[in-house]
């Protein structure tokens, strides 16, 4: 029956039903495509994320050693503070009773830095994407509800946002860490609890503009329910904004995770780039000029954060064309 109808349409030259829908999803997909086609920097950002994601997924395969267990030489002693093989004095390793194959050397308790770096991408991306998703989803829903319903709903949600704005971020995470066992999830929870405020406010203001437009009234006059208006009519228009704030949130989350780890509030059993920096700092790596220990995690943090901002900027340029001229 359905097929017959489609066939009949096809014969009479009518466009098929699927093609005519012009769904919001397709439009959204086109917006996303536009972002990455227009802006090569955003594409570069996406590429960085793709590479790190691949590394994170394949980490156990790529990493030559276990990142946590100290490496031992033939005598059963830890291989402390080995230089990268391309820097080390030739023959030194044999004298110490091991073969130096370490791309970035070892730590002061004999862990392989290169393997740590690879495993660090897992926690970075995990924190980055889950926190960003949480921030974007919570912020979008709160912004939609506050903007659409207005009145008391708006008052309560926006005063809650004011409170969230008033809480200092890093100290808040430290308090959270004190309540729960140290874990990278503390950062995710803290971001979800606090950082929805920016997204929520921006989305709310956008909803206030859109809901006054005549097509929303038209939907209401046609009998559309509140939920239908919010999710079919308004949400697709503001989703690019959620993506914008989401991609900035990725960068913030990675940066925050690094800061918290560097301050020493992270789980010592999970390797992250921030943790590596803290480890290096505490072991006086700086004074020993062990740049191979400090620079790579720093670079990785910088690259992922930059990727987030590049993508965010791409969205901004599509959303606010006036920025292009600057």
């Amino acid at each position: 029956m359905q097929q017959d109808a489609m066939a009949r349409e096809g014969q009479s030259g009518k466009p098929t039903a699927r093609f005519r829908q012009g769904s919001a999803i397709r439009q959204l997909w086109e917006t996303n495509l536009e972002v990455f086609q227009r802006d090569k920097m955003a594409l570069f950002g996406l590429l960085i994320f793709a590479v790190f994601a691949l590394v994170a997924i394949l980490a156990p395969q790529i990493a030559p050693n276990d990142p946590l267990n100290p490496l031992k030489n033939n005598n059963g002693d830890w291989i402390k503070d080995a230089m990268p093989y391309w820097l080390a004095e030739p023959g030194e390793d044999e004298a110490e009773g091991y073969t130096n194959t370490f791309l970035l050397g070892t730590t002061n308790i004999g862990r392989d830095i290169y393997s740590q770096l690879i495993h660090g991408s897992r926690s970075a991306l995990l924190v980055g994407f889950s926190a960003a998703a949480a921030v974007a989803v919570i912020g979008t829903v709160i912004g939609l509800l506050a903007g659409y319903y207005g009145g008391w709903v708006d008052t309560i949600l926006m005063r809650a946002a004011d409170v969230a704005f008033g809480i200092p971020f890093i100290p808040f995470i430290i308090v959270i860490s004190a309540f729960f066992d140290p874990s990278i999830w503390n950062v995710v929870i803290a971001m979800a609890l606090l950082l929805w405020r920016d997204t929520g406010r921006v989305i709310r203001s956008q909803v206030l503009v859109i809901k006054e437009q005549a097509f929303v009234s038209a939907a209401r006059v046609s009998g559309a329910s509140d939920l239908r208006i919010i999710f079919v009519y308004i949400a697709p228009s503001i989703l690019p904004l959620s993506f914008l704030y989401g991609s900035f949130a990725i960068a913030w989350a990675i940066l925050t995770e690094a800061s918290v780890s560097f301050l020493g509030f992270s789980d010592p059993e999970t390797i992250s780039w921030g943790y590596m920096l803290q480890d290096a700092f505490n072991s006086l790596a700086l004074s020993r000029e062990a740049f191979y220990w400090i620079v790579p995690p720093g670079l990785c943090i910088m690259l992922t954060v930059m990727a987030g901002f590049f993508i965010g900027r791409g969205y901004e340029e599509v959303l606010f064309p006036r920025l292009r001229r600057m």
Partner: protein
Amino acid sequence: MTILSIRDLSVNYATQDGTVQAVDGVSLDLEEGQRLGLIGESGCGKTTLLKAIVQVLPRNGRIAGGKILFKGMDLLQLPAAEMRQLRWREIATIPQASMDSLNPVQRVGSQLTKLLRVRGGYSKKAALKRAADLFDLVGLDTERLTHYPHEFSGGMKQRAVIAMALALEPSLLIADEPVTALDVIVQHQILEVLRELEQELNLTVMLITHDISVVAQVCDSVSVMYAGRIVEQAAAEPFFSSPAHPYSLGLQQAFPNLARPRDVLVSIEGYPPDLREPPSGCRFAERCPFVQEACHDIDPKLEAIGDGRAAACLRSNEMDVLRVQSEDPSLWQRVEVAQGLSLAEDGQPPPKSPPIAMKGDLDAPLPATISAETPPSPSQWGEVDDAPLLELQNVSKRFKIGGGLAGLLRGDKEQTVYAVNNISFSLKRGESLGLAGESGCGKSTTGKLLVKLIDASDGEIIFDGADLAGMDDDSLLTFRSRVQLMFQNPFEALNPRFTLYRSLTEPLIIHGWKDENKRLDRVIETLDRVNLRPAEVFLDKYPHQLSGGQLQRVVLARALVLHPDFLVADEPVSMLDVSVRAGILNTTRRLARELGLATVYISHDLSLLQYTCDRIAIMYLGEIVEIGPSDQVINNPQHPYTKALIAAVPVPDPTIENPPLRIQEGIPRPTEQFIGCPFAQRCPDAMEACLTVRPPQITDENEHTAQCHLYGEHRDSPKLERQLP
């Protein structure tokens, strides 16, 4: 003496998609003391011409050729510094929407004196005196010099802008749409100011507008622009009595005229040509009902046709015959192919025997022509009966402002706005009612109440026996399928992310139409009904791919797709170009008659309401002050406010002088409840009783009701002494 002489001026805009020839070979002469009206629809090059004259073209604009001679000087050769000296001092301009150009953080008076001192070399004292004189000249109280722009009403700001333009005694004033977006009474007063100034100062004026009635009221000569060219030049009187170009003919017949109402307005179908690649022949040929073979090949030059008139038309010698023919609206009804979309528009008259018999409608003379295509017969539309479909009883809507937590903290007092105040009327099936009044009179709020976008604070709105206030979800959904709203701005009324098919099918989905094919059939049927043909072409389009007139038809189609019984149209054509307005109105009017649809039109334009409505209600400060059959209200107005509104409507005929307007602009804020008549403050006929006693509603034998003491038991109450403008 010739003040301004433009010779063969061409202006190009460089755009991404090629060069647009916005002005193409325009020649124009302006004598001292002449008042020239430059008319044409949007995008025809009027404003570009203005910008070229004062040389403020945007960066991508370039003067491609020609001369602009001002008092013998070629402005195009003038160094920038000298040109700067000329602007304002010799050539003053009032740009579009200039009332918003006053600096909001400076007193209006100091903006004026600063100008006088910097540009005019006045001393401080002389500047103050001159500013006061200027305010006098434009009819503003000199005390207002110390006020800030936000303390001015729209009309006062426009007067201040005129005062500033005149400050340095320019010899030429160019005003671009000086009264567009102003309320009809304010518009009348600004035109009055302009007229007086011209006489007092012997000013040379060039008035740019799309509204031919404004030109008729102010100008002594007319130039018509179309697609970057001037197509007709004439003195005002012959232009209005016997236009000599088909485009001018169409423009005049597209305008509703209170003094000489027409049965059917014409709509100039189609769109101006793409000025990136203008056609080689006549630019109007695509839309011209009198087009001949030769028109597509020969580009007509603007040629003198006697009487000091000129027209660019190959058939200008036959114009007397064509003029008579052009009275037939069906002549203008054509099938157009434009922008890759094939569509048929209609200037078609309603069918000979409307299926719904209505009071007052059967006598209306119906033109002889019938549309070739009869739309599908109405399927599930309602039956005819005499019971009112909609009834309002003492309905009020109040809004509270300045309240809430923020207001409390700021120390604002909560105020009540009486947006709609105790109105009652009823509407039968198939009947159309117009709601008119100045902005802020509550007509749009009434519209929202009728479709239950907002709820009434008091009173009852009964739709087909059911009270709107106490509806459960099911009956509300049924109500939603029977009552629809048509919006003012077609560019906002459709979801930009939906195809037209999606927009049109949404109401059907909401109301449980599960079968995709039935939905598609209904959508196509409805598109066909509003003359978007073939409908299939439009299904895949997004709103931005259509013109304003087409979009408004889609908006109408969406309103009709559920086969409602009642339609509210809020300013349905005010955002559209004059040439396509009539098409929308004709379609709406024809469909309402065919389908027995009850309609409420909301508009500030009385001539439009007279054209479309059986009855008209005049609103003032949330109250209906007069309601009755359209011709009664327009031709025999009872309430002083109605009289004023009608007197203020400019008539597109220079031989008809508007009666003097006897009221001041400015509606008081509707935050107080009046003991007496709300209009008493502005009423020229106010009596003592008006201030203390509520006016009665007096109905005559034509069901024409006015709420005024002039016709009640207090008619002999002593008149109030007050100064009138």
